[in-house]
């Protein structure tokens, strides 16, 4: 239930509308702060952002420069998480790696949400032929195993961070489009949309002012889970040697290098993997929590 559902009712004046909107925000916030998972997840996500921004300040060493005399040092006071085969500090590289992960997560999800929302809105609202064609495309992209498609794209384009953006963005939007289309289909039959139309609102206005804002909740939930998914995909692609190229410190490629040293230097795999795991866990908890908070169907 949002503000827009009630806006057409005759007696509501602007001041009252504002007040209910504020109430709703306060209510959402209360629900959010009571949801333990969501709060922990938000804390993890926030610390990741901070670590990424403050990387140069937090890092004890240089992320790229190799010091061969320090190679494969186990965790010690000087190198808290040990060093890799080139003598680079693992902790430093994990800190800098958060920048790659965060960038990939946000850019890919930005692309997915933009394309997905546009296609979903058009398909759902216009219906008819347009919907037939668009939902056909959505279903084909959605049906294809996304990581496999990304692998195929990178096989052709070659490894690299920009290519990862393209590969993951090309497949990620279908999830968003499906969701938005479904929301629009049910929203456009609702009374408040009918009322807006009766009051003379044109299609553009109805979509932007009335339908889109009501899709924000689900989009935020899917977007959060999508960021987790994009980060995991980038790590996977880098692990397979198709993502970010060395010497750029990406968590996935660190693991890929560490794999060769599992016997002699397990810290090379333990810590970068832990970084991925905690990040994904945090974002999943945040996404799940947001779903509980924002999804009207789950509200009592």
């Amino acid at each position, binding site marked *: 239930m949002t503000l827009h559902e009630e806006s057409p009712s005759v007696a509501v004046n602007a001041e009252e509308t504002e007040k209910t909107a504020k109430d709703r925000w306060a209510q959402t916030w209360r629900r959010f702060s009571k949801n333990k998972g969501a709060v922990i997840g938000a804390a993890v996500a926030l610390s990741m952002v901070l670590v990424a921004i403050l990387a140069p300040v937090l890092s004890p060493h240089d992320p790229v420069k190799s010091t061969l005399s320090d190679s494969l040092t186990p965790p010690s006071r000087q190198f808290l998480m040990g060093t890799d085969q080139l003598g680079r500090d693992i902790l430093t590289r994990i800190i800098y790696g958060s920048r790659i992960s965060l960038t990939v997560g946000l850019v890919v999800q930005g692309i997915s949400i933009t394309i997905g929302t546009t296609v979903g809105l058009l398909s759902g609202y216009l219906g008819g032929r347009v919907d037939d064609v668009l939902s*056909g495309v959505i*279903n*084909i992209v959605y*049906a*294809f*195993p*996304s*990581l*496999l*498609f990304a*692998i*195929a*794209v*990178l*096989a*052709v*384009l070659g490894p690299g961070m920009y290519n990862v953006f393209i590969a993951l963005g090309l497949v990620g939007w279908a999830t968003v489009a499906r969701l938005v289309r479904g929301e629009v289909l049910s929203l456009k039959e609702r009374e408040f949309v009918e009322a807006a139309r009766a009051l003379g609102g044109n299609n553009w206005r109805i979509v932007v002012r009335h339908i889109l804002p009501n899709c924000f909740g689900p989009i935020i939930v899917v977007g959060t889970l999508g960021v*987790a998914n994009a980060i*995991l995909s980038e*790590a*996977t692609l880098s*692990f*397979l*040697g*198709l993502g970010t190229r060395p010497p750029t410190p990406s968590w*996935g490629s660190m*693991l890929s290098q*560490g*794999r060769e040293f*599992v*016997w002699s230097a*397990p810290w090379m*795999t*333990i810590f970068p*993997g*832990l970084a*991925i*795991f905690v990040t*994904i*866990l945090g974002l*999943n*908890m945040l996404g*799940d929590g947001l779903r509980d908070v924002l999804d009207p169907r789950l509200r009592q």
Partner: protein
Amino acid sequence: MQKFILRRLLAVIPILIGITLVTFLLMNVIPGSPLALMIDPKAGELDPMAAKLIQAKWGLDQPLHIQYLRFLKNALHGDLGYSYRFNQDVTKIVLQRLPATGRLAVAALTVSVTVGILAGVVAAVKHQTWVDSAAMAVALIGVSMPVFWSGLMLMYILAVKLRWLPPSGYGDGAFRYLLMPAVTLGFSMAGVIARLTRSSMLNVIRMEYVTTARSKGVSERGVIYRHAFRNAMIPVVTLVGVQTGALLSGAVVTETVFSWPGVGRLLIDSIMFRDLPVVQGSVILIALIFLTVNLAVDIVYAYLDPRIRY
């Protein structure tokens, strides 16, 4: 029912065309001519005459849509092209690797379905107790753990430290070699299945027919297994179908971690060697398996739930 199956079969056709078209375009348009990929740049430029002859031989001088149609026609006859690296038909190479991937996938699916459904049902039956929270915490961990990391950690603990299992390889199909890859891949999917099973069970338990069963004196065990469980499984079956995509993608990663000689590792190796015909063949084969499994799941679903056959 037959009508439903027919309609689902027809719906696969555009998807198949879409997938082959995209794969074909990817492999043939963007990186320049496939010819350039056949020749080691270090060996110097190819004589233009020879280049023309080779292009004519492989039909590379034809317009792209003709090339695609021929590719499609050949593919329908089981011919996916020729690997310059192996000097063999792509179909043959890919099919050779299929059994290993099949074994891994079936084993992983068994692990994930058993663990996932069991955990989900137990969590739902013990709703809002510590058992429920513990099961869901483990499920969330399973969902969030990257396959390649959990695989490497298992390898480190079970093979390097405890020396219980061989670290990697196929071992001529010995069960000991299958164990770690199957558990790694299976656990990553068990979490999703457990979460859905739980919420589906909780939904069903609230239904009136479950209350009716209880009130007519069916034992709690009977209520859970005869009435709730069977109905709760309907969405889970669909999920398992959708998860095939994740299973196959996960297999690519798991095979790479454990040096398992399946289609996934073939795909990644072929990318490294720029053996694009094999890349194309593996992608299409994996997509085909995915579509077939989904089709099968849809049909099973229609049997399980008569409401779906609209």
